[in-house]
């Protein structure tokens, strides 16, 4: 298992591959479905036996699907802390699943396009992640995955309320649709709060990079539906899809404004960020995210020309604590990690002539 996870560590996340003409702003599209088995209590009231029973029933159902023969099964309950954190950083499992107790696991599609979490807040959490703005195809995919499982399991389904979930905030479709955006110019122009208030008014939620309760690290934000009941899946997808072009436009306007009104300041900011990343001797993951965000915008605006965006995207993930430790081959204390991170950044950013053209 560790071997398979190490293979994942060496490459970029599927959802971080730049795709489409809005890839300067839209990172990924994700849909998750919450499902429960009718003949087991919800997780909160599960005995150890119940949890094992849920896991077994789900495993059996998954194993019956011919085209899923190559899924990677990971028993999260026996997994090392570092490996759990690694899966969280890649968004293959939730923080909740990583930190829970008792029997729990995940089945991961080898290209990381979907993962099936067992014994999270609900018995099953299915999720599909795709690069770029791709909600429609993500829905088709997850609907198909859901059908495969529905034909083999007894889902808890209520005639009037739809799919039943442990928390009433997810009842109905059990669906959360989210799009991850990179919005550095809206943060810089301090218009981000205003944008988010507008989104909340129309029933959309805004979260940070790693979902509920997480800080908006590196100016990454996830926009998702708040309600799950009383609207069809297609409607909920449309609600999120319709607002994304407006946010993209808003971010583009903010970028254009910065370039027009304060090009020198912006160029200076971006170049300094690049300079620090190329030369620092010790650096935290927060500072790295913050600076990479500036550099990413700089590359997208043509202010930095000797870097390509995919290299930057990879650095966002590979400099996260668990990734860095896996790449460097073992557990490291925070201080050592910060030194290793600086070495990693220098070796991946500094090329002959790179520092001159960054000026």
């Amino acid at each position, binding site marked *: 298992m560790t071997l398979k996870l190490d293979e994942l560590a060496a490459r970029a996340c599927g959802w971080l591959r730049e795709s489409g003409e809005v890839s300067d702003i839209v990172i990924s599209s994700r849909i998750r479905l919450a499902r429960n088995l009718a003949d087991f209590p919800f997780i909160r009231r599960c005995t150890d036996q119940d949890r094992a029973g849920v896991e077994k029933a789900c495993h059996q159902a998954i194993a019956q699907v011919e085209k899923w023969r190559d899924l990677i099964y990971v028993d999260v309950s026996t997994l090392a802390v570092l490996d759990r954190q690694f899966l969280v950083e890649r968004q293959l499992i939730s923080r909740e699943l990583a930190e829970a107790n008792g029997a729990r696991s995940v089945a991961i599609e080898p290209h990381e396009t979907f993962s099936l979490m067992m014994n999270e807040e609900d018995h099953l959490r299915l999720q599909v992640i795709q690069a770029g703005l791709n909600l429609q195809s993500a829905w088709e995919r997850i609907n198909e995955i859901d059908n495969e499982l529905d034909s083999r399991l007894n889902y808890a389904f209520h005639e009037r309320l739809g799919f039943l979930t442990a928390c009433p905030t997810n009842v109905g479709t059990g669906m959360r649709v989210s799009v991850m955006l990179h919005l550095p110019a809206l943060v810089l122009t301090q218009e981000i709060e205003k944008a988010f208030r507008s989104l909340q008014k129309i029933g959309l939620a805004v979260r940070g990079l790693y979902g509920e309760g997480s800080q908006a690290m590196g100016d990454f934000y996830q926009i998702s539906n708040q309600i799950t*009941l009383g609207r069809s899946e297609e409607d909920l997808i449309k609600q999120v899809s319709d607002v994304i072009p407006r946010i993209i436009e808003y971010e583009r306007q903010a970028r254009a404004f910065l370039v027009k009104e304060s090009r020198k300041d912006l160029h200076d900011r971006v170049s300094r960020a690049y300079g620090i990343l190329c030369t620092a001797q010790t650096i935290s993951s927060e500072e790295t995210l913050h600076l990479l965000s500036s550099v990413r915008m700089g590359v997208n605006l043509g202010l930095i020309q000797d870097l390509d965006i995919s290299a930057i995207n990879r650095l966002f993930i590979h400099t996260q604590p668990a990734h860095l430790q896996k790449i460097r081959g073992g557990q490291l204390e925070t201080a050592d990690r910060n030194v290793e991170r600086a070495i990693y950044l220098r070796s991946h950013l500094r090329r002959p002539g790179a520092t001159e053209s960054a000026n």
Partner: protein
Amino acid sequence: MKCQQCEKPATFHITELTGESPVEHHLCETCAKTYLQENDSSSPPAPTLSGVLAKQLKLGQAAEELARLDQRACPVCGISFHEFRTKGRLGCPHDYTFFERELMPLIMNIHGETKHVGKRARHSEVSLDEETDVIRLRREMDEAKGKEDYERAAEIRDTIRKIEQKKKPPAQAPDSPDKP
């Protein structure tokens, strides 16, 4: 650029996205603050589960009534309404039926609707009560074991097995893979 409301330079550029089409405002810091505050008060933040729960409880439920309600426990999973209220998570699918009267206003508050209109499960015609029976039986079996009433526990185990056999979804056995 000058502020649209006074003579100071506009440093805040706000695009209002909530209407039919985006509206732009160019304001100085002071006017922008006023504008944002005004817009804020008219739009309460989206309801959270704990907020809705707290609100629901303030709505004239007398203390005794609440205490009585809190004592009610689901016959299938045993969760009390008090436990749900404090932890925010339900205990089993049957809770949606058993606590229906309490949950419906809450669900209405969260979603603004009480009827699912999306995708349906394959076996949605099967009664949910029949399926949640197994949860109750398993709990009773554990209780019987706890009292060292092994005869009763064995009886319940056989009942559970019968129900599970009957309910087996029409899926293929693991050793006979389905057609692609």
